[in-house]
């Protein structure tokens, strides 16, 4: 009976939070999932909109970007949130969560004419989290500091190590690794802002929903099963990270402390992200209407049996 | 019946670099009877190759007409074999394939080509070199392959453009003897271009002395010296003295003109 099962191509990126998607084929019931590993969320999104894959694990930001460009993407489930961490380089003497100290330092450096160098991967969830948190604390990431874009998170450790940046907002497991290697120190988890800790989202296209509603539902079911399993059993997750990345299990375990498996899709925070992205000129239209409309809760509702008001709506 | 007839040939080249016309051949008329051996004698750049190319069909005269065996020439063809100033062998083919290239074009099978080539390879004395590549041959050997290739076409007319110019004295002497022997055996018409007075006098039944640019026929000399010709003999040296005087006069005239216009001939430049 496996032969006549519908097949779904599911793309996912390489990060500690994304990697467990590799487990979905085993959890899938009534659908055959082919999980494809991409280097960046951006490649996953491109593959989805060019119809190379059917379902994609991307970030909320990708979802907004795609809508801005008029692409047909529909969000069908959450996955894992969190994973962002702001760290400071060795020379920066700041206590954790000491925003006042950070502000003073920024003002001081600005006055000296060598603004604080703050790095992130532009357009990542971490970028948005950091900018939101800065704004909340009265820091303008565009004016008060010198923003440095390091697209590949694997370069973040080296940049800190070499003192090329002072503050960085990076993603797990690189954050844990930076801490473990002593290249940087924990400053804060930047979730106290409008976007919350939203990170990953499962999206598809409306034509896929129309043609293979059963397969989509089965896929959502496997994601939900995955999320439940991740909540219950971190060991399997650590195992996956270790297998795919070769990272130390200790680092992986550390990384998971900053991970919140969550299949809900948080509407308000999504709209906040859309607004923030527009302010940052990452997108050029107001997409809040589309962003709300294309959050499709019906599969989650069917799979979990919960009403959408319990699922982030 | 005339084998080759040139009637009032003129040829004008467009000199693209200096943007002017260049009169290379000026009103040349010549008739070469069947089985004759005509030597065209002239200095570098006087238009010898151009004249030969027009008989071969590689160039069209600007004015006048060329007929071979009564038919006007309108392109290269296998009825006129040409031996070039450089041997122009296909460097990627062994000697025998070069000789039999014509048969390859006609689609003959390898064994047949090989057999047909052998006759001509023997004729020019290259037994043992059938499978050598052009890069492994000396200049004289290459020219012999070129001659064998032209002979295999079994043409009525063979055109030869300074084929021995690059050879040393001894090889040249040998080749000249061989060529005369072949010509006597094959009974074909040969037009042979050279700038060596000795060579023209050793080979030809007729010598046409050309003027420097533009090329005109200065004098057409019939030779009825006995063969093999003795290049240190009396009669030979009388002809030689006569021709050298013609050339010297030419040279003096040319130098007077060169003083007025000190631009080197484009073609000579390319050969430098």
């Amino acid at each position: 009976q496996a032969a006549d099962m519908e097949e779904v191509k599911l793309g996912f990126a390489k990060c500690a939070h994304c990697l467990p998607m590799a487990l979905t084929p085993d959890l899938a019931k009534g659908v055959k999932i082919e999980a494809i590993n991409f280097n960046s969320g951006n490649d996953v999104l491109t593959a989805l909109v060019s119809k190379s894959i059917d379902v994609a694990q991307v970030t909320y930001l990708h979802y907004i970007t795609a809508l801005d460009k008029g692409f047909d993407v529909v969000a069908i489930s959450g996955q894992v949130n969190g994973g962002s961490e702001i760290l400071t380089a060795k020379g920066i003497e700041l206590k954790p969560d000491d925003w006042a100290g950070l502000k003073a330092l920024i003002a001081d450096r600005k006055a000296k004419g060598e603004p604080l160098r703050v790095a992130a991967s532009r357009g990542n969830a971490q970028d948005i989290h950091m900018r939101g948190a800065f704004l909340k604390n009265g820091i303008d990431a565009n004016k008060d500091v010198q923003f440095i874009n390091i697209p590949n998170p694997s370069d973040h450790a080296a940049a800190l190590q070499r003192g090329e940046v002072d503050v960085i907002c990076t993603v797990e497991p690189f954050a844990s690794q930076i801490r473990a290697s002593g290249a940087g120190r924990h400053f804060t988890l930047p979730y106290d802002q409008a976007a919350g800790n939203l990170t990953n989202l499962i999206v598809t296209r409306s034509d896929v929903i129309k043609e293979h509603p059963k397969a989509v539902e089965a896929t959502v079911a496997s994601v939900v099963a995955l999320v439940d399993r991740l909540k219950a059993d971190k060991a399997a997750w650590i195992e996956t990270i270790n297998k795919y990345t070769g990272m130390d299990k200790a680092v992986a375990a550390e990384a998971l402390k900053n991970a919140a498996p969550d299949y809900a899709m948080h509407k308000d925070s999504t709209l906040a992200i859309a607004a923030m992205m527009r302010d940052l000129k990452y997108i050029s239209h107001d997409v809040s209407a589309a962003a709300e409309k294309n959050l499709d809760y019906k599969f989650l509702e069917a799979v979990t049996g919960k009403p959408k008001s319990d699922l982030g709506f | 019946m005339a084998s080759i007839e040139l009637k009032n040939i003129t040829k004008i080249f467009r000199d693209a670099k200096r943007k002017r016309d260049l009169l290379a051949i000026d009103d040349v008329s010549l008739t070469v009877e069947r089985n004759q051996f005509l030597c065209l004698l002239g200095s570098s750049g006087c238009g010898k190759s151009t004249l030969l190319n027009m008989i071969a069909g590689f160039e069209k005269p600007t004015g006048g007409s060329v007929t071979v065996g009564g038919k006007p020439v309108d392109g290269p063809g296998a009825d006129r074999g040409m031996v070039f100033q450089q041997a122009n062998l296909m460097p990627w083919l062994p000697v025998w394939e070069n000789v039999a290239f014509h048969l390859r074009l006609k689609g003959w099978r390898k064994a047949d080509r090989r057999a047909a080539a052998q006759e001509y390879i023997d004729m020019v004395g290259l037994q043992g070199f059938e499978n050598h590549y052009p890069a492994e041959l000396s200049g004289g050997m290459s020219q012999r392959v070129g001659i064998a290739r032209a002979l295999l076409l079994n043409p009525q007319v063979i055109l030869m453009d300074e084929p021995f110019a690059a050879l040393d004295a001894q090889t040249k002497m040998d080749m000249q003897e061989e060529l005369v022997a072949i010509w006597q055996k094959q009974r074909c018409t040969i037009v042979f271009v050279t700038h060596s007075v000795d060579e023209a006098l050793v080979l030809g039944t007729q010598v046409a002395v050309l003027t420097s640019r533009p090329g005109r026929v200065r004098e057409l000399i019939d030779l009825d010296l006995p063969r093999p010709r003795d290049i240190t003999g009396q009669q030979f040296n009388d002809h030689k003295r006569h021709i050298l005087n013609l050339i010297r006069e030419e040279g003096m005239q040319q130098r007077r003109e060169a003083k007025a216009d000190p631009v080197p001939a484009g073609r000579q430049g390319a050969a430098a």
Partner: protein
Amino acid sequence: MTALWKSWERAVVPLFILVAWEIVSRSGLLPAALLPPPTVVLHAWGDWVFGFDETAQGNSGRWLADALSSAVRVAAGYGIAAVSGILLGIAIGWWRWVERTVEPTIQMLRPVPPVSWIPLAIIWFGIANKPAIFLVFLGAFFPVLMNTIHGVKTADRNLIRAASMMGATEQQLLRHVVFPAALPSIFAGLRIGIGAAWMLTVTAEMVAVKSGLGYVLWDSYYFLRYDLVLASMASIGLLGYATDGLIKLLMSAALHWQHGSTLQSREG
């Protein structure tokens, strides 16, 4: 005795570099993870190839499969590039009207680096092998094309004359004279092309393929496995060297008539 020394002599400097590298990276000047010593690299490489102790983790024992996938991509893209580059090059070099119509477009596209086609390659060809093959094609196509055109245009006019003296038709000229005459230049293009082909496979494997030496390179980079990064670099270099050697072999077979006639044929 001297012959033995000669071959040793060539190895002295590379060996010295390896030893110095081992010492530097064991000394801890850089974090060992970022510049693993040669022995560590060799160990990881060995496991990648033979799979003895899982040092290379997911990649353990998969080297042959990786090398094969990369090689297949190179072969496909390069094959298409070689055939189309040679055919189009001969047409452009020989017929004026083809040159006039096709060349401006070629000249427009040529200076755009093949790498920058990656975004378009993905949307046009999706994921998996096709975009990689397309990029390899792009990289190898232009060197082959340009060198073929050059070869045809510089083919000795006198040989063409000699052949038409023997009654060759245009098609025969192309097949029996122009093509063999252009062959040395075509091979020069093929050799530049194979280098470009490997380079672009590595780049293309950055996005969305599941195996290949380049894939392992980027994957290892992403997770800071510098031992595997270096092992991939060495593997790719090795395969690149081997394929170049193959083409050189082919070349010396096809151009055997050139032997000794030029100095170059003895070099590189």
